[in-house]
């Protein structure tokens, strides 16, 4: 399988840099990674390669998943898990840290609390940079694994009615996902209380691009004819007081009652960790896919590492 021909990216910074063809190519390669990701087959296509995990803020699970992806392919990892142990505490610029650390490794994975950090890193790094989340900005591997999950479960991304629920105003995950889905032929339903609805600019862009969407306040009412329900967390700190939060949080719970009249094929996704948005009783139904979704992060990250490192599969 030739990899480079359909993927000319030097870095993976933002999902907005991707065309549909490039997304589909990453997802195709990810599918071929499944047996290795699950440990049924072994691979050493990245043997001798080193990944530097530079995590300026902790995100244990993201870090572990990159580590697992690299090691499944025979590569190795170095890195740090928080800013406390990096030189940034001593006042070093991110530019300098990247210049130095990219000379130690073959690929750099960056997690940083400031928006645009990965773009800056890509300008100073001598090696490919993979954005693992920059502040309220981009987290492209999350979006790609979300798309991978939808495609894997539904055969394709286009043609689905997708409900997106939670904090749509501030949530970076849902903004990136909405952007990516708008490149496909999907119908979107945004489910959130009015103060946390999708920002006007994003809705305006969807209208201009001719994307069909509607807005709902209540999950139970919106869920009926959806193919996919993507649930995200509503954060307590967005509300003026506990009482207001509880009022909303209560109506944002997916439980057995929510699922009474839904389509048999409905799948429920969540970027995790969840708090109260999805009751544990839902885990055992045929609808839940959030744990598979998290597992899908491994083949998707394996695909990106192989593509960026330009190895033959």
């Amino acid at each position, binding site marked *: 399988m030739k990899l480079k021909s359909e993927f000319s990216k030097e870095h993976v910074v*933002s999902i*907005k840099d991707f065309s549909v063809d490039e997304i589909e190519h990453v997802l195709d390669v990810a599918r071929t990674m499944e047996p290795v990701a699950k440990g049924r087959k072994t691979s050493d296509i990245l043997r001798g390669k080193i990944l530097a995990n530079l995590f300026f803020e902790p995100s244990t699970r993201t870090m572990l998943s990159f580590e697992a992806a690299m090691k499944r392919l025979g590569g190795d990892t170095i890195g740090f898990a928080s800013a406390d142990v990096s030189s940034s505490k001593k006042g070093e*610029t*991110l*530019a300098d840290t990247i210049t130095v650390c990219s000379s130690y490794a073959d690929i750099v994975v960056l997690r*940083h*609390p*400031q*928006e*645009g*950090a990965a*773009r*800056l890193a890509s*300008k100073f790094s001598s090696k490919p940079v993979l954005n693992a989340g*920059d*502040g*309220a*900005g*981009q987290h492209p591997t999350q979006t790609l694994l979300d798309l991978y999950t939808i495609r894997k479960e539904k055969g394709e991304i286009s043609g689905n009615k997708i409900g997106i629920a939670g904090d749509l105003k501030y949530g970076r995950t849902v903004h990136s996902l909405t952007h990516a889905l708008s490149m496909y032929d999907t119908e979107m339903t945004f489910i959130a209380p009015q103060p946390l609805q999708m920002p006007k*600019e994003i809705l305006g862009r969807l209208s201009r691009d001719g994307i069909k969407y509607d807005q709902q306040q209540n999950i139970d009412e919106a869920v009926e004819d959806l193919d996919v329900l993507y649930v995200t967390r509503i954060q307590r700190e967005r509300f003026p007081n506990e009482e207001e939060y509880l009022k909303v949080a209560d109506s944002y719970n997916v439980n057995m009652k929510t699922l009474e009249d839904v389509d048999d094929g409905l799948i429920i996704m969540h970027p995790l960790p969840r708090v109260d948005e999805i009751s544990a009783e839902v885990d055992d139904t045929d609808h839940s896919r959030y744990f598979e979704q998290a597992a899908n992060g491994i083949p998707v990250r394996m695909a990106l590492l192989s593509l960026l490192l330009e190895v033959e599969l």
Partner: protein
Amino acid sequence: MSEEKKTIKISPIKKGTVIDHIREGQSLKVMKILGLTETVVKDVVSIAMNVESSVGKKDIVKVENREIGSDELDKISLISPETTINIIRDYTVVQKKRVQLPERIKGIVKCKNRNCISNQREPIEPEFKVMSGEPVNIKCIYCEREMKEEEISENIV
């Protein structure tokens, strides 16, 4: 207001650059963008604010003895897209054109997002992609936030 009265306020210059049709109240920001507020500038600069014109009030800035380059002047379009530039030689306008919005903006505006990496102590200049001209809309190449006219004007470096 008659043509005659206008010429009294804006006396002609022998040579240099006349920046006309600046949006009312934006002349100081225009000077800032052009670096004319720096103390090292030795050119004679005169400003006229709130001048009546056929389409409402405007500001005018005149810089004597210096022909400012287009690239420099085009930056003004960010805060005042209707601005026109007149290059004067020997009391005659030898070149007249409207400022044009460049495709990329570097170093004149800072990003409105305080948590943007371009607002930290890093060895880079803020940089924006121009998304649209009317109304002006630019997008930070780092954090991808978009900025509208008023926001741009508030964030001139």
